[in-house]
């Protein structure tokens, strides 16, 4: 098995006594495209920035290419690309000067790729950053992160300011460039449909904890919505082995819609028999899963 690109062990982060992240452990390997989702304030940005060593963890550790995130060597830094949620472009420099300044820090800088992408993404490189629109700034910020052909690309809300068409094209190209079997991508987004399309792994962050860390398909298979219909009033507890993620009862008490996790077909059949009810199972998309989890 290849060496982990990112290795997180029991990571915690507190601000003024308030825990923003707690007990997060995971690994990212080459070839992974990890989508991070969570509500506002769930801790996504803090997680990404702590993993990259922007601020020290309060507990636990994060290692990138085998090195501690707080003491990364220049060689490791040269393998990372990062697009922050709020860009920090230099306002008085034009796009070309920003690329040139950033590129001067790297031994390998793919100028041709950036020129091509700037043309395709319609980034006006001759205009000063202060005069660019939000979407153009975001694209320029992404170009800055791609120039060194990073082995680990971390993007924090990279498509928030883009229109749907630009978003789809942008993500598609981004992943073509950044994701192959030797590279890893971690990106957060509120637009769950984007994540579903491109991510092969999902981290769901809720209240500073990693609620789900696994394959996108596995998540979609593991969470199901069950429509329960009976001819009599259903009991207060439907008796699933794990507590449902959400449960809604009909007004007459004879129907219920339950979202369950890790519930096998046998358990569904057994429950239907026990309740003397019909149970219809429905697969959910990532967006619905997200909504059910946070319901």
């Amino acid at each position, binding site marked *: 098995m290849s060496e982990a690109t990112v290795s997180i062990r029991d990571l915690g982060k507190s601000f003024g006594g308030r825990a923003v992240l707690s007990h997060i452990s995971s690994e990212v390997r080459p070839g992974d495209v990890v989508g991070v989702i969570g509500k506002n304030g769930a801790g996504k940005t803090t997680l990404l920035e702590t993993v990259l*060593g*922007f601020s020290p963890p309060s507990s636990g550790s994060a290692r990138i290419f085998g090195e501690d995130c707080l003491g990364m060597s*220049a060689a490791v*830094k040269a393998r990372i690309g990062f697009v922050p949620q709020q860009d*920090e472009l230099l306002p008085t*420099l034009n796009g070309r000067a920003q690329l040139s*300044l*950033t590129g*001067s820090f790297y031994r390998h800088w793919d100028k041709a790729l950036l020129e091509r992408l700037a043309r395709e993404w319609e980034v006006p490189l001759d205009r000063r950053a*202060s005069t660019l629109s939000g979407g153009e700034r975001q694209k320029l910020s992404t170009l800055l992160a791609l120039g060194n052909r990073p082995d680990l690309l971390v993007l924090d809300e990279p498509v928030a300011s883009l229109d749907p068409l630009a978003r789809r094209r942008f993500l598609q190209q981004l992943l073509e460039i950044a994701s192959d079997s030797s590279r890893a991508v971690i990106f957060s987004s509120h637009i769950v449909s984007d994540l579903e399309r491109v991510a092969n792994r999902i981290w769901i962050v809720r209240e500073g904890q990693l609620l789900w860390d696994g394959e996108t398909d596995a998540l979609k298979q593991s969470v199901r919505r069950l429509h329960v219909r009976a001819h009599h009033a259903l009991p207060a507890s439907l008796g699933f082995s794990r507590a449902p993620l959400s449960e809604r009862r009909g007004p007459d008490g004879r129907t219920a819609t339950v979202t369950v996790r890790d519930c096998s077909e046998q358990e569904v059949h057994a429950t239907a028999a026990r309740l003397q009810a019909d149970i219809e199972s429905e697969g959910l998309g990532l967006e619905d899963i997200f909504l059910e989890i946070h319901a």
Partner: protein
Amino acid sequence: MKAVLRIVLGYFSMLPLQRWVSGAGAAMLAIGVLLTLDTGDTETAIKMTFAIALPGATLTALMPLAAGGIALRFVSSRSLLHLRPHGRICVLLGSTLAIALLAALMALPIMAMHHVFVVGGMRRLPESLHPATWFLGTAVYTVVIWLTVFTLTASRFTLFGTPLLVLAPVVFIRAHPPAWIIAAILSAWLIFSLWYWRVRRINRPHWTSGGLASDFGNFTIRPLERLASGRAGKSAATTHYLLGAPFLTYLAIGAFLALLALVMWRLMPPQNVIGVNPLTSLTAVPIIGVLGWLVLRRARCLWLRAGLNRGALFRMAEGTGLAAALGTYCIAALILLAFAIPGRQQMVLKMTLYAGTFGLLTACVFYFSISLTRSWNAEDLALGIGIFALNIAAIIACNSTGRATFSPVLVPAWIAAGIFALLALLLRWHAMRRWRALDWRVAKLPRASQP
């Protein structure tokens, strides 16, 4: 190495139009130095140095000198530098090299002049015109300015520190810093470098991170809180919001300027007491400039809420901002006059006239700053340089007449007052014209970035 050189280049080309100004300055410097070396005559060498080469060097060095500290803070922000290989060390080396380059630029004309004197076997130049003095002096002054600006931009007290930047060179020239001060300041750069290398996090300038100028900073919230709690009426809350602080704060800033000027006064030869007024004006200029710029941008939030059209909003911003600008200057001038007049009754008219003249300059600066509805263009730059040149010309005129005691010497000051009054009216018209076509999408406060 590539990154180090790119950072050095950045200091000389970071601002709009700077590369053209730097280019023109470098051309003047080159021509001046060549002409100086070409002549064997020491008198001509002095003229070439001070008329062409040195102004050229100053033109090239001025912007990096003034904006280097803030550029250093900008370029050091987290996402720009944290993940760059050898990021901090490159920035440190680039900044140190830029300081050396600035010092070399300023020393070069003096070196050429010195060469002509040495080759010609002519009279010795004074110590103050030795190339090494200029090199070390510029390097030390640059370090002082950069470190001061770097420190001040981390907090909201920037405005209070700004006058120090204007006063520092005067103190420096006057005090002839001995070797130990030079050594101490260069050591301060080394200590700063060590700190910079090791510190975990450096923020962007305070006003871009939700503070001084942000729509969401305390400067916006406090007036609203005062209004909501009944501690301030609508008018007072609006004034507080537009000025970013209660009106009294500006009077306190004026008193602070007067205090600085009084310190300067102690350092000046007694006959130059009259020069304190223009100096105070010069120190007030950056504050008034920033005030006007912020008043214009803060007015954006009142556009819809106050239900005023652009013309009415201009008059509201003008009334509030001009009162604060003149209040700042007048309180400083009054304190100075109160200290200066006793024992110099024969100079009362002159001092009052000079104070008034430079008060009018303050109004010019205010109107100029509220006319900056877009980012700087060539017209604004020319206007800014013109006002600055007029200010310097007026200071020279005042100083040259300050030593005389008979009435005809007041003429230059009356002329300056007339010119400034006319200029203030013209700039008011210019600002009003700009406001009529004001685009609120452009004239807005700096974007708040992550702290």
